[in-house]
């Protein structure tokens, strides 16, 4: 069984996000990019399938994405069998901007998957910046494959997979889906495994990224971004200031007034 895991990095949400001067994009220069947390979960689920049944796991990324080499080498260090970096054969349209629209991303991946089919495509259910929709179902629609998202476990069973799809409040459905299929993972059955930095370095030194040129897709009918801005708070918290001890005193005072701290 061949499992392809599309992966990418997104801006680190712990840091402040800078916008470009014209206010229609995020400024890539001052941002730190980290592996999209849902892609980390997707890779873990694929590696669990490999552990259980000996599947081949291929991590795939786009050459125009920030930090893609780091993302793919880390996947190799965690146990992926191969890593492929897809480059658009000529620079076109929006590729190369800070955020590649999902439709363009999916079109490139769909071309790759049409040429080298997978039994299962497992990727993150969403990404922090996928304004025009999520990758799994975009890709599935382009490839005409069955798909399910917000999945919290994937198990293979002959020619099909059994997945658990989650809804608000913890309700879930168990679905049986024929392969080939595309699955959008919310969380893996266990926390993503850790790759020691030494093993990532080893993967880098060994090379092992296959580069592949794919002809770029025709520009689709995307969204027109008018403006990006930071949210303006309608209300705002009263800020407690001073040392950590001062702030703790004020919070304990609030709790004591409500009888939640005795004394």
């Amino acid at each position, binding site marked *: 069984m061949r499992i392809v895991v599309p992966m990418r990095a997104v*801006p680190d*949400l*712990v840091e402040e*996000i800078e916008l470009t001067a014209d206010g229609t994009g*995020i400024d890539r220069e001052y941002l730190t990019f980290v592996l999209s*947390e849902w892609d980390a*979960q997707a890779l873990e689920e694929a590696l669990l399938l490999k552990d259980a049944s000996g599947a081949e796991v291929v991590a795939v990324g786009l050459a125009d994405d920030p930090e893609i080499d780091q993302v793919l080498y880390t996947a190799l260090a965690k146990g992926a069998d191969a890593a492929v970096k897809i480059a658009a054969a000529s620079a076109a349209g929006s590729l190369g901007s800070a955020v590649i629209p*999902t439709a363009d991303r*999916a079109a490139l991946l769909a071309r790759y998957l049409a040429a080298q089919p997978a039994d299962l495509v497992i990727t993150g259910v969403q990404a922090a*910046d996928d*304004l*025009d*929709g*999520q990758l*799994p*179902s*975009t890709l*599935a629609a382009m490839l005409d494959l069955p798909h*399910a*998202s*917000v999945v919290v476990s994937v198990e293979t069973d002959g020619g099909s997979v059994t997945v*658990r*799809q*989650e809804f*608000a*409040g*913890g309700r879930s*459905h*168990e*679905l*049986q889906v024929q392969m080939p299929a595309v699955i*959008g993972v*919310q*969380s893996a059955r266990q*926390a993503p495994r850790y790759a020691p930095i030494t093993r990532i370095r080893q993967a880098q030194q060994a090379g092992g990224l296959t580069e592949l040129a794919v002809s770029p897709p025709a520009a689709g*009918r995307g*969204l*027109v*971004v*008018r403006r*990006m*801005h*930071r*949210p303006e*708070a309608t209300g705002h*918290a*009263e800020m*407690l200031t001073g*040392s*950590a001890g001062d*702030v*703790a005193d*004020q*919070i*304990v005072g*609030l*709790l004591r007034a*409500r009888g*939640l701290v005795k*004394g």
Partner: protein
Amino acid sequence: MVLAEHTGMQVSEGTYELVGKARELASALGGMTEVALLGPRDLAGQLGGADIVVSVEHPALEEYLPEAYEQALLEVLAQRSPRLLLMSNATIGLDLGAALSVRWDAPLAAYVSALEIEGGAVTATAKILGGKVLTEVELPGERGIVTVLGSAFSATEGQLALTPEVVQVAPPAGLDALRMSLRQVFEADSGDLDISAADMLVSVGRGIESPDNMEIVQELADALGVPLSASRPVVDAGWLPKTRQVGQSGLKVKPRVYLALGISGAPEHLEGMRNAELIIACNTDPGAPIFGIAHYGTTVDLFDLVPELVDKIRG
């Protein structure tokens, strides 16, 4: 047009929020509000906010099944040609929105918290990057799809008691040749304790950084004698069980006090705790969206604050 979400018995609150917004947009455009109801037709009686209910009935639509819903909706879209399709940005919207965008050939805006008509064009505001950036987009063309965050709009207007016309659409043949099936439905598992019943919650987010640090917030929760809860990233990382997750994909809570530690305030989280009586938030980023709804806030580092709190509470 709005896609109705339901459990088979009850139409969801989020559906009414979308119907209310759809009525406003339809009135601005001089059109009508339609609701697509897949599955049990008798639920049309709960959709009095619609002018027309478009019903598709088929055994595969009794419970939500991605491929069945997608095929039925494509048939409805082909027959009714709405200007705009509104869906929730929860599981069903994440599952179907982008696929329908490809197959119905319409632009999609996701994570939307505001939606307007400006000079005949549909404009939407999306909350991306964990709610840290608002993006105003225009959906070009004659049709579009919008997936909307929960609690973005009021449900009141969507709960009118009109008598909508029910239009039946024949199920497409594809529903008899699906490539997936529903095996089992699991109801929510309340687990070891019910955080939605707690008087106070100590809740921890991405800012806790590592599983080793969970101990210090657990110590604070123990000192207060209240449960520890978390935002989605902490639960997805496996540091706390799913039964402790607060948010749109977890549980909605309404404690007297909600102490948010290292939680930035992504829309998914805010939806689960915005109704707490008193919200106190600790986050080192002064621009974190959580401060927009918290009553009290501090940018002191949680790793400095929490040990002080434990000391003072233990006396």
